[in-house]
C-alpha cells in the first residue's frame, strides 16, 4: 500500500468519526430513557391509551386541528365519561400542566422540535402574564 | 463543462470576489432577518409588499426577456442570433433563481414553503406563479445544457430537446403574464386593477431582458474575447427600442385613464408617484425623483437609439449607455413605481410611505450579486465552450 502512514491513521479517524453517535452516547447521560412526569392531579386516563398516545399523539393533534379549524367541528369529545375540548390548551394542558416536565422530556430525547408552543400557551407561560384584576 | 468556471484570468476572479463580498453581506443580513422576523424591513401593515417583491416582479420580466432571442432563432430561423440564444437561456435561469430567492426572503415562514406544493390551490395566482416559474426554470436548464453539450461535441442537438425549446416560448410569455395576474386581479388595488398591466409587464420585460444581454455581450467583447456580431446587436437594439416604446405608450395610456376619468382610485397613485400627494397638510412625494428619472432615462435611451439608427453611427459605448439607460428606467418603473405606487395608498385611503431598511437593502444586494455571480459562471461556460469549438 502506498502512503500507508497517512491512510491507515486517516481511516481510523474516519471510522471513529462515523461511529461517534454510538460510542459517545454509550458513555453519556443522553441515552437514559426519559421519564415524563405524570399529571399532578392524579388523573390516570387520557383521551387514548398511553401506548397509542406515545405512538400517534401528533397525528391525533393534527386531526383535531383540521377538524376544529377547517371543518368548524368544535364538538366536545367524551372518553370514559370525561369531556375534553379538542385542542392542546383545551385538553392536553389541562392535565399535563408542565410542558418542561412532561412534553419536553421525550421531545429532547428524540431531538424533536415541534413548533406548537410558539403559539399555544403552556400553563406556566400563561400564568406569567395573568390578569391582575 | 462546469470545470470551465475554475479557469479564468485575474479580472474574472476579482469580479467573482467582488460579487461574493456582497453575497456574504447579504447572507449575514438574511440571518439577522431569519432570526428576528420581517420586522427588520421597512414593510409594515399598510405596505406589506416592498423591495423584495418588487425586485421579484422586475426579474421575472428579465427572465422572460430571453424569449426575444429564442423566438427569432428557433421559430423564424434568424441565424444571426445563433450564438446568443444560450446567453438568453442562462440569463433566464439566473433571473428565475433570483426570483425564487427573493420570494424565500420575503415570506414569513420560509420553512413552510413546501405547503404551496403539498396543498395545491388552483384558484390562487401565486400557486400558478410557482408552477410556471419552476417549469420555465426546468425548461431553460434542459434546453441550455443539452444544446450547449451538443455544440461542444459539434453535433446537432437531439430531436427531443426541440420539444422543450418550443414549449419554453409560451412559458416565457406565461411567467410574466401570471406575475402580472398577481396584481391585476385584486379588487382592492385600483392602481393595479387594469387589463393593460399584463401587456405593460410583457413590453417592459422584452426591453429589459435583451438590454441586459446586450450589455453583457459588450462587456464580454472586452474581457472574454466574445463578439456577438454587429448585426445581432443592431437587431437586439431595434427590439429593445420597440418594446420600450410600447411600454412607454402603455404607461401614457394609464395616465390618460386616470386623469381624464378623474376617478381618484386610478389617479391618486399616479399623482403620488409623479407629482406628490397632499393629504392632511402633509406632502407625500418620496418617489417623485425616481419616477422622473425613469422617464428621462427611458426617453433619453430611446432618443440615443433613434439617433444611432437614423445617422447609422453606432459605437459600442453608445449602445451600452443606451441599453443601461433603458434597463434602469424600466427597473425604476416596474421595481419601484408599480409595486410601491399601488401600496402607498392603503385600502382605507390612508397614506403610508415606504423606506427600505439597511438590512433589507443588504439582502436585496446580496441576491442581485448572487444572480450576477450565476450569470458570470454560466456565461463563462458558454464562452469557453465556444472558444473550444472554434479552436
Amino acid at each position, binding site marked *: 500500500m502506498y502512503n500507508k502512514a497517512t491512510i491507515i491513521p486517516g481511516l481510523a479517524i474516519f471510522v471513529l468519526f462515523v461511529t461517534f453517535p454510538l460510542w459517545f452516547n454509550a458513555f453519556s447521560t443522553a441515552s437514559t430513557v426519559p421519564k415524563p412526569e405524570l399529571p399532578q392531579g392524579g388523573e390516570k386516563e387520557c383521551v387514548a391509551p398511553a401506548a397509542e398516545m406515545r405512538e400517534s399523539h401528533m397525528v391525533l393533534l393534527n386531526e383535531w386541528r383540521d377538524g376544529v379549524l377547517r371543518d368548524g367541528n368544535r364538538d366536545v369529545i367524551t372518553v370514559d365519561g370525561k369531556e375534553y375540548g379538542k385542542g392542546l390548551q383545551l385538553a392536553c394542558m389541562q392535565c399535563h400542566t408542565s410542558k418542561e416536565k412532561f412534553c419536553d422530556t421525550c421531545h429532547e430525547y428524540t431531538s424533536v422540535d415541534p413548533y406548537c408552543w410558539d403559539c399555544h400557551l403552556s400553563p406556566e407561560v400563561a400564568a406569567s402574564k395573568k390578569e391582575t384584576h | 463543462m462546469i470545470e470551465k468556471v475554475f479557469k479564468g484570468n485575474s479580472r474574472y476572479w476579482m469580479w467573482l470576489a467582488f460579487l461574493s463580498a456582497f453575497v456574504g453581506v447579504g447572507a449575514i443580513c438574511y440571518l439577522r432577518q431569519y432570526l428576528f422576523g420581517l420586522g427588520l424591513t421597512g414593510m409594515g401593515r399598510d405596505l406589506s409588499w416592498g423591495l423584495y417583491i418588487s425586485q421579484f416582479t422586475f426579474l421575472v420580466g428579465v427572465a422572460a426577456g430571453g424569449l426575444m432571442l429564442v423566438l427569432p432563432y428557433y421559430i423564424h430561423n434568424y441565424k444571426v442570433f445563433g450564438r446568443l440564444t444560450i446567453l438568453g437561456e442562462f440569463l433566464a435561469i439566473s433571473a428565475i433563481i433570483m426570483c425564487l430567492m427573493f420570494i424565500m426572503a420575503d415570506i414569513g415562514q420560509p420553512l413552510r414553503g413546501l405547503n404551496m406544493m403539498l396543498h395545491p390551490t388552483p384558484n390562487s395566482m401565486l400557486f400558478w406563479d410557482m408552477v410556471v416559474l419552476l417549469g420555465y426554470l426546468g425548461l431553460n436548464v434542459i434546453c441550455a445544457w443539452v444544446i450547449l453539450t451538443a455544440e461542444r461535441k459539434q453535433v446537432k442537438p437531439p430531436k427531443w430537446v426541440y420539444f422543450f425549446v418550443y414549449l419554453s416560448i409560451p412559458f416565457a410569455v406565461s411567467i410574466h403574464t401570471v406575475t402580472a395576474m398577481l396584481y391585476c386581479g385584486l379588487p382592492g388595488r385600483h392602481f393595479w386593477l387594469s387589463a393593460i398591466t399584463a401587456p405593460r409587464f410583457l413590453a417592459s420585460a422584452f426591453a429589459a431582458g435583451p438590454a441586459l444581454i446586450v450589455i453583457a455581450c459588450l462587456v464580454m467583447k472586452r474581457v472574454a474575447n466574445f463578439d456577438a456580431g454587429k448585426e445581432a446587436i443592431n437587431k437586439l437594439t431595434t427590439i429593445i427600442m420597440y418594446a420600450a416604446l410600447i411600454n412607454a405608450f402603455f404607461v401614457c395610456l394609464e395616465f390618460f385613464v386616470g386623469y381624464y376619468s378623474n376617478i381618484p382610485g386610478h389617479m391618486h397613485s399616479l399623482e403620488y408617484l409623479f407629482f406628490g400627494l397632499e393629504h392632511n397638510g402633509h406632502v407625500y412625494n418620496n418617489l417623485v425623483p425616481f419616477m422622473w428619472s425613469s422617464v428621462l432615462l427611458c426617453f433619453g435611451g430611446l432618443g440615443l437609439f433613434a439617433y444611432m439608427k437614423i445617422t447609422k453611427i453606432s459605437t459600442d459605448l453608445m449602445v451600452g449607455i443606451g441599453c443601461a439607460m433603458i434597463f434602469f428606467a424600466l427597473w425604476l418603473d416596474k421595481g419601484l413605481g408599480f409595486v410601491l405606487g399601488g401600496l402607498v395608498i392603503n385600502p382605507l385611503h*390612508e397614506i403610508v410611505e415606504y423606506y427600505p431598511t439597511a438590512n433589507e437593502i443588504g439582502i436585496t444586494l446580496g441576491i442581485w450579486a448572487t444572480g450576477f455571480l450565476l450569470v458570470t459562471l454560466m456565461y463563462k461556460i458558454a464562452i469557453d465552450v465556444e472558444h473550444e469549438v472554434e479552436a
Partner: protein
Amino acid sequence: MDKQRRKFLKIAGATALAGISAPAVVQLTTSSAVASSSNGTAKVHGAPEGGHKSAAHGADDAPTGVRLGLVVDMRKFYGKPELLDKAISACAKAHNIPQIDNKKSEIKWIWKAPFENVFPEHSSYHSSKTVKENDFLVLCNHCDEPPCVRVCPTQATYRLPNGIVAMDYHRCIGCRFCMMGCPYGARSFNWENPRPYIKEYNPDFATRMRGVVEKCNFCGERIALGKEPACLEAVKETGAIVFGDLNDPESEIRKVLDKENTIQRKPSLGTKPSVFYIV
C-alpha cells in the same frame, strides 16, 4: 459505455424511480385518516368560490346553512369613544392580540377610523357633524366572496360553512398575498415575535407566532361555547352590536336589517360583506 451497462443502468434507474414513488402513490390512493383529511380539505376548500357562489346567488332565493353576520349600530357609539375602546380592548384581551405602538408593525383585528377611511366609496363631501367628529368601528367583513381566500396559495385562509372567513396559522407561509387581496385592510402580519407585546395572556386561546397573517375570526371559539363575540359582549348593555344568522329570517339581526337603513364598505367590489353599519 457498452450496451449491457447502459441497459442495466436504464432498468436500475426506472426501478429506483418506481420504488421511490410507490409509497407516495399508495398514500394518495388509500384513505388513511390524515391523508383523507388533508386531501378532503383540499377538495372542499380548494374551490370555495365554486361551492359558495351557488349558495350565495341562491341566497336571494333559498339560502342554505348558517351565514353569520354583524350589524354595528354606530348611533349608539356617537359621542362615546370610550365605548369603542371598550369593544376593541375586549377583543384584544380575548385573543391575546399584541399591543405594538409602532404604526408600521401594529396588529389590529378591530379598530376605529374616520368615516372617509372606513367608507371611501361613500361621499364625505359636506358630511354631517356627527360623522366628522366620530370614529367608526372597523373589522374583517367576513365576505361571502372573499378575495383573500381566492388568492391564498396554501388555503391557509378559507371560508367555513357558517360564513366565517377563518385562518389556519399552522399552514400560513406568510406570503401576505391575502393582505394584498383584502380591499378593506382588515389583515395584520406578525413582523416579529408578538409575545413580548402581549399585556396579559388569555389561557383559553393561543397566541400567534411571527411570520403569519392574522385577523378577526368572528370569535368562532366563543360561538362554539354558546357565547357571543367579545366586542359585542363588551357593549352588551347598549345593544350597539348585533350578531346572528343572516340566513334565518326570524333572527334578531334580520329584524334589525329589515327595520334600519344600513350601509356596507365598498359594495361595488362584489365581495358581499357580512358586516353592516347603521350610521
